[in-house]
Structures are given as C-alpha cells and as structure tokens.
C-alpha cells in the first residue's frame, strides 16, 4: 500500500542561502519530472566491484595503534520506505578524527592529525538490514560559511539501496550537541529532519567497560527487493 509521500518529505532544498555554497551550485531551472515507474524505480547503481572486508567496519583497527578519542559503536538498520530491511547493501562512512581534523589534504584546520586514524570505513548490511561500525567520536570543526561557524560532530554516510532513487549520501549527528541548532546544513531539513539525522544513545549497544553505543536507522526511498518465497 502506498500512501501520499508528500507529508513525509524532509529533503533539503537545493538553494539554501544560509549555506553559502548552495548559491552558485543550486540549479535554477525547474527539474524535469519523469514517471516514477520508469525512472525512480529502475535499478540503482551496482556497487559490486567495491571490495569490502569485515575489518573495514572497525575504524579503530586500521593502523598499528589505536586512535585517540572516545571509542564508540554506531549501529542501526537500513530500511525501505515500508519499514522492511534493505539487505546486502553497501554502507560507506567517513569522518573527522577526535580533534575535528579530516585526513583529507583539503582540510586545513590546525588541529592534529592522528597517525592511527584514517576515518573511512565500509560494510554490507546483513539479512536484517543491520550495519555496525566501531570508531571514535568525531570532533567539531570550524568552517568559513559564517564568522565563527562550527560544524557539529557528524559522521558522513553513503548508502546505495536497490533502486535509482534509493541512493543516499547524508550525515549523522549526535544527541545533545550544542552546535546542532546553529548549523545551516542541518538547518536545511527543518526540525523534524534534524531528528531523523540524529542518532540516539543506546545502553543496549554500549559494551561494558569498552565503548558507548549509538543507534541510528536509515530509511531509503523505494521498496527493497523481496525474495520470491516471502
């Protein structure tokens, strides 16, 4: 059963002047709408050539030593818009280190790099649509969008899903971050959208005497392909 989707939309607009980089990059001509059945619902990009090892999901074990910072577990489910698990789909993550610095050479923030942290990971969801990463909590960092502007701590997520309009790149934020109400990127999705992009602390995911746990579910557009015997 498909219900009217419009009331459930919290997508950001392309043009959002508070985020200055949108001003010269948002298209101005109206986007062309194609029928859903032969555009949005066609198969999405195949990512099968991207190699994934089990160890890629642990960002704290990619170097000789452990990275500095607060070790955390981030897990959740990838669901389709009917709430069914999206199985065996690629989830990619990347983030700043605990000091708020990306290893990317483009990042010039004068905070220390961590020789034991790259900040990129990936995994494939299991039969229940579950993903799980071990990492360190990323730090906030400054950006020049506004005077004294700072990005709230976040982890970037890339998820493929099964059809053309399932493809999603987004950011996950942490509860209680005082920068959240000030952030123009997160502000582009409204209050309800902010809630959808904020993970929750979860004692059940927390591993005793080792790491705090957070849960965050990702809902993709479209319907997961269902095995014929279901």
């Amino acid at each position, binding site marked *: 059963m498909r219900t009217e989707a419009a009331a*459930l939309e*919290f*997508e950001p*607009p*392309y043009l959002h002047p508070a985020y200055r*980089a*949108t*001003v*010269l*990059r*948002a*298209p*101005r*001509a109206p*986007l*062309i*709408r*194609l*029928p859903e*059945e*032969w*555009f*949005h619902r066609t*198969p999405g990009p*195949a*990512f*099968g*050539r*991207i*190699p994934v090892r089990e160890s890629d999901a642990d960002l704290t074990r990619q170097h000789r030593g452990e990275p500095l910072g607060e070790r955390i577990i981030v897990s959740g489910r990838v*669901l389709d*818009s009917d*709430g069914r698990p999206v199985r065996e789909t690629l989830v*990619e*993550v*990347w983030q700043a280190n605990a000091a708020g610095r990306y*290893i*990317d*050479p*483009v*990042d010039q923030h004068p905070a220390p790099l961590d020789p034991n942290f*790259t*900040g*990129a990971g990936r995994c494939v969801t299991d039969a229940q649509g579950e993903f799980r990463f071990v990492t360190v909590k990323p730090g906030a960092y400054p950006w020049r969008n506004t005077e004294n502007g700072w990005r709230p701590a976040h982890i*970037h997520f*890339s998820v493929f899903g099964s059809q053309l*309009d399932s493809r*999603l*790149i*987004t*950011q996950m934020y942490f509860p209680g971050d005082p920068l959240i109400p000030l952030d123009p*990127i*997160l502000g582009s*999705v409204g209050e*309800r959208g902010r809630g*959808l992009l904020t993970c929750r602390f979860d004692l059940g995911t927390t591993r005793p005497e080792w790491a705090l746990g957070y849960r965050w*579910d990702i*809902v*993709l*557009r479209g319907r997961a392909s269902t095995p014929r015997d279901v």
Partner: protein
Amino acid sequence: MAERSAPTPSQTVGPFFGFALPFPGDADAGGVAPLRIEGRVFDGAGAAVPDAILEIWHGDAFARSATDATGRYRVSISKPRATPGPNGITAAPHLDVSVFARGLLRHLATRIYFPDEGQANAADPALARVDPARQATLVARPEGEALRFDIHLQGASETVFFAL
C-alpha cells in the same frame, strides 16, 4: 503492515570525501572496449567545481570519479544498449549520472545520451519531456578518442537535471 517511515533526508557530501570515496579503480567500470567519458563541472559563475563526485552507470556497469582542481572527471565504461521504455517505447541508450558536491544538499540526477544515436534520441521518452532548446545539454560530444560531457550546475547553459 509495516508503518511507513519518512525517508532519511540527504545532506551534502561536503568537501572532505576524497580520502574515502571513490576507491582506487572506481573510475574504470571495466567491460569490453570501454568508452572514455570526460568533462568538467562548473558552477553558476562558470568556475570549476573541484569538489564534486560523479557516479555514472547503466545495468551492472558502475564508475565513479571525483573532479580534480580544474573540475575535470574521467571514467571508462561500456556503451549501454537501447532499453525497453514505457508502453512499448524504446529508450535511447543512455548513462545515468548522479552528481554530488559540496554545496549540493541533495545530489542531482542527469543522463548522458550519445551523439551517434540521433534517431533513437529523437524517439526517447525522457528527452521528449525536455525543452528542445535544452536537450543538447544531455548529449555528449565527440572529442578525440573520448566523449565530452560537461555539467553546468547553474546558469545560461545549465544542464538538465531530473527530479529525484
């Protein structure tokens, strides 16, 4: 019946994805006699966009390339065939393209059509929905051994994008 949930909203890929996406080799989708497609991405002031990442695919072939300091991307991919479209109409061969960049809160969707498929392009049901004056923004042009496909995010020669 599962409760219908709001899709997770999109957020920009940001400027710092280069160390995480794409992976080495991602620009080459493999296949026999791959096409080379290259081009540049520009903003509304005509400046190169050095922090975009493009995903280009058809069927099982998938390539992705980040733009360099001059806004240039390059991929190798096999040429798609014509595919069945709606109501028995045949869709002209095309590649699907997703454009992600700093400053794009949500990615953009466009298509690459081929310059040597004039007849198929003329009958294509998606191109038919595009203002004829703007259709050329969706057709690659030959350039040496490669095909050239530039993307203008905004402005007088703005590329046609499809609503997601």
